[in-house]
């Protein structure tokens, strides 16, 4: 792109008469909503094409390849509460959600205790570190099979799978949170003689909160996956069991339809619970959409807004808290999973690092 063209582009951004059509076209192409809406449309087209192609090669495939009509009809019936399965969709999700909730609470409590201890003490960290990594590496399926053998069919097995899936993420996040506590703010509080309780409430806990929040998100997303697997093998009801029910009944539209209901369920939770909670808890953080920053930098047509620069400067590991469920399910990229020699905890750092910086 020549320099002249870039200048021309920039002047177009200033309030000059731009044709309405162009403005609408720009809005459509730049809006993230367009991108979001295009994806399901593309999926639908691929789906219909796939059925067409496969059935021309192998006509019997009609039985196992459900059409969008069948799937959405099934989902509509389920949403109406009209089902041949033993429980309707709402009962099924309520059962699973209860297991997930209890499992997550247990994981958060145990994980926070162990994570804080690991962050504070080198010895405790050495004691747990390898086993946290081992539990992290264990496939959900192994836990599901083991727990259904050990606890039989019921609530206990799936709940324990949720705990075991979620707990390493909570431990690792909380440990990193403890290691990242803002020592400069503690020094500030000390120099003003702020009482200890107030420091805990206004400095320590708020600084840990983003890490706990990230942990809860990971635990939710991964715990949910683990739970579904566990219910397939060790449940007599719940979402995983029901998808197995449709599989056993050889109803492909039931399996696909239920999987889509999972997606809707996860999205609703993400939007209604985590996003809202995050907005409330972290309203102090300059709001920013990371994708916008990259795009702005890449295009370089407009200078970065000052708020973006400020937010980038302020961004810490806490921004991991904002990772969506899709990111979380693919595994946390920043976790030091294979970290054989973790950095020493804060109290082992030189007694007074500040003096080396200046003065």
């Amino acid at each position, binding site marked *: 792109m020549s320099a002249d063209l870039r200048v021309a582009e920039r002047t177009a951004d200033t309030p000059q008469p731009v044709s309405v059509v162009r403005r609408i076209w720009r809005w459509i192409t730049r809006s993230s909503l367009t991108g979001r809406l295009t994806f399901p449309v593309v999926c639908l087209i691929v789906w219909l094409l796939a059925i067409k192609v496969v059935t021309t090669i192998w006509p019997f495939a009609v039985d196992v390849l459900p059409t969008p009509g069948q799937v959405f009809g099934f989902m509509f019936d389920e949403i109406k509460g009209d089902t041949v399965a033993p429980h309707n969709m709402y009962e099924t999700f309520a059962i699973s959600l209860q297991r997930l909730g209890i499992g997550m609470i247990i994981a958060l409590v145990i994980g926070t205790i162990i994570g804080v201890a690991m962050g504070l003490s080198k010895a405790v960290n050495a004691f747990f570190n390898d086993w946290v990594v081992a539990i992290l590496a264990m496939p959900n399926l192994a836990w599901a099979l083991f727990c259904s053998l050990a606890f039989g069919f019921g609530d206990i097995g799936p709940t324990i799978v949720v705990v075991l899936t979620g707990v390493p993420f909570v431990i690792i996040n909380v440990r990193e949170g403890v290691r990242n506590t803002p020592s400069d*703010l503690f020094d500030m509080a000390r*120099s*003003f003689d702020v009482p200890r309780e107030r420091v805990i409430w*206004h400095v320590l806990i708020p600084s840990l909160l983003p890490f706990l929040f990230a942990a809860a998100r990971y635990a939710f997303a991964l715990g949910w996956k683990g739970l579904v697997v566990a219910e397939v093998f060790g449940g007599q009801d719940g979402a995983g069991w029901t998808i197995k029910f449709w599989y056993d009944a050889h109803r492909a539209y039931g399996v696909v339809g239920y999987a889509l209901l999972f997606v809707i369920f996860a999205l609703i939770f993400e939007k209604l619970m985590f996003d809202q909670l995050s907005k409330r808890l*972290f309203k102090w953080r300059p709001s920013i959409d990371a994708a916008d920053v990259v795009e702005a930098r890449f295009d370089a047509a407009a200078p970065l807004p000052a708020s973006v620069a400020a937010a980038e400067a*302020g961004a810490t590991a806490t921004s991991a808290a904002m990772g969506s469920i899709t990111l979380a399910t693919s595994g946390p990229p920043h976790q030091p999973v294979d970290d054989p020699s973790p950095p020493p905890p804060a109290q082992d750092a030189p007694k007074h690092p500040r003096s080396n910086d200046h*003065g």
Partner: protein
Amino acid sequence: MADITVSELHKEFGLGADKVIALENVSLSISGHAFVSVVGASGCGKSTLLNILSGIDSPTSGTVRITQNGRPARAGYVFQAARLLPWRTVMDNMLFVQQDRSKETRDRCQHYLEMVQLGDRGDKFPGQLSGGMQQRVGIARAFSTEPDVLFMDEPFSHLDAITARTLRKELNTIWAETGTTVVFVTHDVGEAVELSNRILVFAKGGRLADDIDVTLPFPRDVSDTEVAVTKAEVFKTFEDIGALAIS
């Protein structure tokens, strides 16, 4: 107005071959409505001295006594970075360091926010303010505890020249109004001459090399001839003591 007495202060970091002497037998006393600047090159122990005075750090040997009419003095601190709690509003940051949350305390905080021209920003979060504004909040926070002595550690070094200049003027006004004793660490000799009535020059190895009284009338400006002359004199001192030599 506090009285500060420092005697035979010694501070070392590390052990054996890694041992670094940050302060070497420093003795000094400060009293009255003083604005004392501590100047010197990087690594001469300026910040260490300030941290020991404020109680953030403890000395290897020697004593520090800071009193106000015989009782222990109250201290405030302004840091190089503003060090505000990012998750609390400006007003809550001010209240965080106060003894109580009474109406009078709130009014006092508001008064000092107005003094740094941020009276209408109390409900903003630090992330919504510029660097200069954040540093202003840090200064207001320190003064709002009405300290007998205020320690300032290169508070303007991260700011642009124009913002720093404005803040220096504000600081000078507030200092004149409050009567607080200020100990001000800086590596900027011009800043030291503009603000202070006494300059302590530190040399490498944490030695107190010189103690200069600056008697020019306030308000001063870096562009004043007398300030420039005094600045040149201080630099001359640096040369005389070999503080400018590259070691």
